[in-house]
């Protein structure tokens, strides 16, 4: 549908440009895209293919198609499934850490996200499809796990299925199964035991197999941006690679800061009241600026594959317009370095303009109320920067081959520098700078390109960009969005180094009303119902009696409500004055008192407790590793207070001098 913005295939409207010209014999070497069956809109409507009026007509129709796709997408999202906005990865991280967002992984969200993702990518906006595909895969995982009762009743097992589904999502998006598993391990999952590892591997494998067997485009390859060159790289080239890593880190920091500032402005001011208008404006701006530059007019994936490609004798694009030596008799694969022709210089400044444009427009695009991903735009930015650096180094090596640096490894007439490799390294650096991935990034990159020789440059760039970016801010883009939205997510990567104790954080503090507790056998049903109605706590600790506050267990609010309702309906004799007890045997009661209500089965007899002198470092560790929601504080067996996950998060925010009231999500 991306090609629909530019023209249509007359014989079969479902073909893209490349597929339409697949069988024709009229394609020439210089103009590989021409064939009579594919017609641009200007040719179709006014029968002219060159000239100013044709250009303006094509331009106008391009903008119209882009606007209509974007408008369709945002209205579908607004009417049917508002949870289908955004990337989805921050919310999936929160869900996998134990928090429940009802409806986020529902069937309508799945359908709408899939449908609108196609529309949004075709409209030419600067976003990718990989992040939303992870959300789509998790929705599928949620749907399948609800079919089997083993997974639908047990939240922990369901989260394992979701981890495996995330791995399958990345595997489908990139064609990178192993990278998908590592991505799920590093970025998305919270709790990843070894059995989830092999199950994710199996899911990614099945996804890759399905993708391969459908094979609509006939590459018979999973690899999205296949590179066919295997020229070696030299140690002296590490310097520009590290430079690209620094650029990636700087760009990552810039992007995260600007994007978070813009999203915060969208949340708090009137800008957020007009989501549809915002989407249409950004699409219009993108389409208007993108059309004149041939590098932004086409889809971003095509741009990246052209940038990754090395220039052999068979390429005829502007980027490969080098001045050829007419007496050259070398075989195709090993073209020596050549001076740049006119086409390369044009391509360089066009790429520079495209780079600036993409950097700016992605800041405003990510986070809008449409499904939007971040991987492909960051890779595009990095690839453009990398290619420009690569061409620069290549020309430097050609014109100054007698400098000391180049003399050792670059003889005139030899093939030293491959600019496509620089583009790959740049893409990896920028992606690493934004998301702060390390191992999974390198694996995804070499699975994407098939360039196994280039693992060391990729690793160097990824590590450099992570160091540079971490020097400015600790959070990647997904953690930054989690903090912006105030989700209760306890990051496993943060370190807690303060010396506070559990007494400093627990509730109730001094001056607050005492804890609402249930006693073991002395409260009536009416008392408990009043307590439930007056407070909105998630659960209540159960103690022996009000005098000796020895802890027995913990009862959850939802189960209490359900049990009381069932008892009132089913059991005989249970009235408001009935005693509620949590012990094995009913307490001693006078003769004509109403029937007591036994609720031992809803009592959790092993709640997690810490003593009041436990350092908060240990408490935070316990919360993280066990995924707790609350923890009770005791001293000598007597109940003192309670610490919930939100208290921990507020405390951490306070220690980091942030506003603790921003953790508001209920």
């Amino acid at each position, binding site marked *: 549908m991306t090609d629909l913005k530019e023209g249509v295939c007359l014989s*079969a409207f*479902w*073909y893209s440009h490349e*597929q339409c010209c*697949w*069988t*024709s*014999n009229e*394609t*020439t*070497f*210089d103009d*590989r895209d021409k064939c009579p069956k594919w017609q641009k809109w200007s040719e179709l409507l006014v029968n002219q293919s060159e000239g100013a009026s044709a250009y303006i007509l094509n331009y106008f129709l391009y903008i119209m198609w882009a606007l209509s796709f974007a408008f*369709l997408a945002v*209205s*579908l999202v*607004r*009417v*049917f*499934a*508002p*949870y289908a*906005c*955004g990337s989805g990865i921050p919310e999936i991280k929160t869900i996998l850490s134990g928090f429940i*967002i009802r*409806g986020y992984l529902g069937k*309508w969200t799945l*359908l*709408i996200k899939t*449908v609108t993702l196609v*529309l949004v990518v075709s409209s030419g906006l600067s976003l990718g499809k990989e992040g939303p595909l992870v959300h789509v895969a998790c929705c599928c995982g949620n749907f399948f796990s609800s*079919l*089997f009762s083993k997974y639908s009743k047990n939240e922990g097992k369901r989260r394992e299925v979701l981890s495996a589904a995330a791995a399958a999502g990345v595997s489908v998006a990139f064609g990178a199964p192993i990278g998908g598993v590592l991505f799920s391990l590093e970025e998305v999952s919270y709790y990843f035991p070894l059995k989830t590892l092999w199950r994710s591997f199996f899911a990614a494998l099945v996804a890759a197999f399905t993708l391969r*067997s*459908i*094979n*609509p*485009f*006939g*590459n*018979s390859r999973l690899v999205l941006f296949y590179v066919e060159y295997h020229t070696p790289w030299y140690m002296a080239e590490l310097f520009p690679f590290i430079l690209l890593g620094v650029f990636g880190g700087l760009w990552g920091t810039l992007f995260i800061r600007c994007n978070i500032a813009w*999203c*915060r402005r*969208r*949340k*708090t001011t009137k800008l*957020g009241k007009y*989501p549809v208008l915002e989407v249409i404006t950004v699409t219009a701006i993108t389409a208007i600026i993108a059309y004149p530059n041939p590098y932004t007019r086409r889809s971003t994936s095509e741009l990246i594959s052209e940038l990754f490609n090395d220039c052999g*004798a*068979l390429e*005829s694009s502007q980027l490969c317009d080098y001045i050829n030596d007419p007496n050259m008799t070398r*075989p*195709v694969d090993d073209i020596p370095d050549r001076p740049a022709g006119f086409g390369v210089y044009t391509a360089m400044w066009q790429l520079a303009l495209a780079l600036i444009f993409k950097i700016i427009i992605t800041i405003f695009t990510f*986070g809008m*109320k449409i499904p939007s991903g971040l991987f492909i735009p960051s890779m595009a930015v990095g690839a453009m920067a990398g290619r420009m650096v690569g061409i620069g180094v290549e020309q430097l090596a050609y014109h100054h081959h007698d400098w000391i640096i180049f003399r050792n490894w670059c003889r005139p007439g030899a093939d030293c520098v491959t600019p496509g490799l620089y583009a790959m390294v740049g893409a990896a650096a920028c992606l690493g700078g934004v998301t702060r991935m390390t191992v999974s990034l390198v694996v995804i990159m070499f699975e994407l390109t098939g360039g196994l020789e280039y693992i060391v440059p990729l690793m160097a760039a990824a590590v450099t960009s992570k160091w540079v970016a971490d020097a400015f801010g600790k959070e990647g883009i997904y953690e930054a*969005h989690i903090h*912006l*939205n*105030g989700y209760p997510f306890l990051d496993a990567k943060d370190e807690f180094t303060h010396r506070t104790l559990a007494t400093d954080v627990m509730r109730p503090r001094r001056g607050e009303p005492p804890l609402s507790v249930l006693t073991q056998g002395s409260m009536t049903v009416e008392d408990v119902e009043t307590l439930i109605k007056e407070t909105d706590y998630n659960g209540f600790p159960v103690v022996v009696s009000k005098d000796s506050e020895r802890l027995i267990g913990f009862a959850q609010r939802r189960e209490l409500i359900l049990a009381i309702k069932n008892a009132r309906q089913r059991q005989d004799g249970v009235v408001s004055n009935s005693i509620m007890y949590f012990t094995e045997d009913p307490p001693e009661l006078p003769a004509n008192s109403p029937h007591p209500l036994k609720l031992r089965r809803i009592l959790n007899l092993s709640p997690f407790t810490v003593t009041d002198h436990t350092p908060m470092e240990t408490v935070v560790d316990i919360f993280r590793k066990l995924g707790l929601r609350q923890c009770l504080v005791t001293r000598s067996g007597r109940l003192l207070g309670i610490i919930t996950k939100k208290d921990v998060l507020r405390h951490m925010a306070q220690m980091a001098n942030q506003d603790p009231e921003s953790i508001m*999500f209920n």
Partner: protein
Amino acid sequence: MAARARLCSMLALAALVRQVTGVKNFEDVRCKCICPPYKDQPGHIFNKNVSQKDCDCLHVVESMPVSGPDVEAYCLRCECKYEERSSVTIKVTVIIYLSILGLLLLYMVYLTLAEPILKRRLFGHSQLIQSDEDIGDHQPFANAHDVLARSRSRANVLNKVEYAQQRWKLQVQEQRKSVFDRHVVLS
């Protein structure tokens, strides 16, 4: 039992898809040879429908632009690749997608435009008393509360469908409030 039936239907669908995609169109295989410029000949691209073992320069290039001993040098520079695609898959996928998109569009138009008009005509004048919430709520599904309250009387299939639909609308309305209005989720 229901899970087993679902599994069977999924397997049947998978077999059908495999059968559909197994039929290869005549036009769906090709050998593409790209030959760069040589001496005074411009570059050419040749396509021909040959099998994979015949995919080389001599079989594909029908009218050789050079002759005699130059043929070998010319052919050495050419690069030939065997490609296949499945046009049936592309056609089926695109048509399925467009039909789903069309259905969703129709449903959206129905929900936003047609349904309030129909409901107003059916329940018309008995809606004079409105609560505070409904007055400011001009979004789709604003009448979900009313219809839910009214539909407890009959219990046939049509009413169950309508009940499920109204419950779904309430859910979507809640989601929309938290995403678009209060900006609590998804910035």
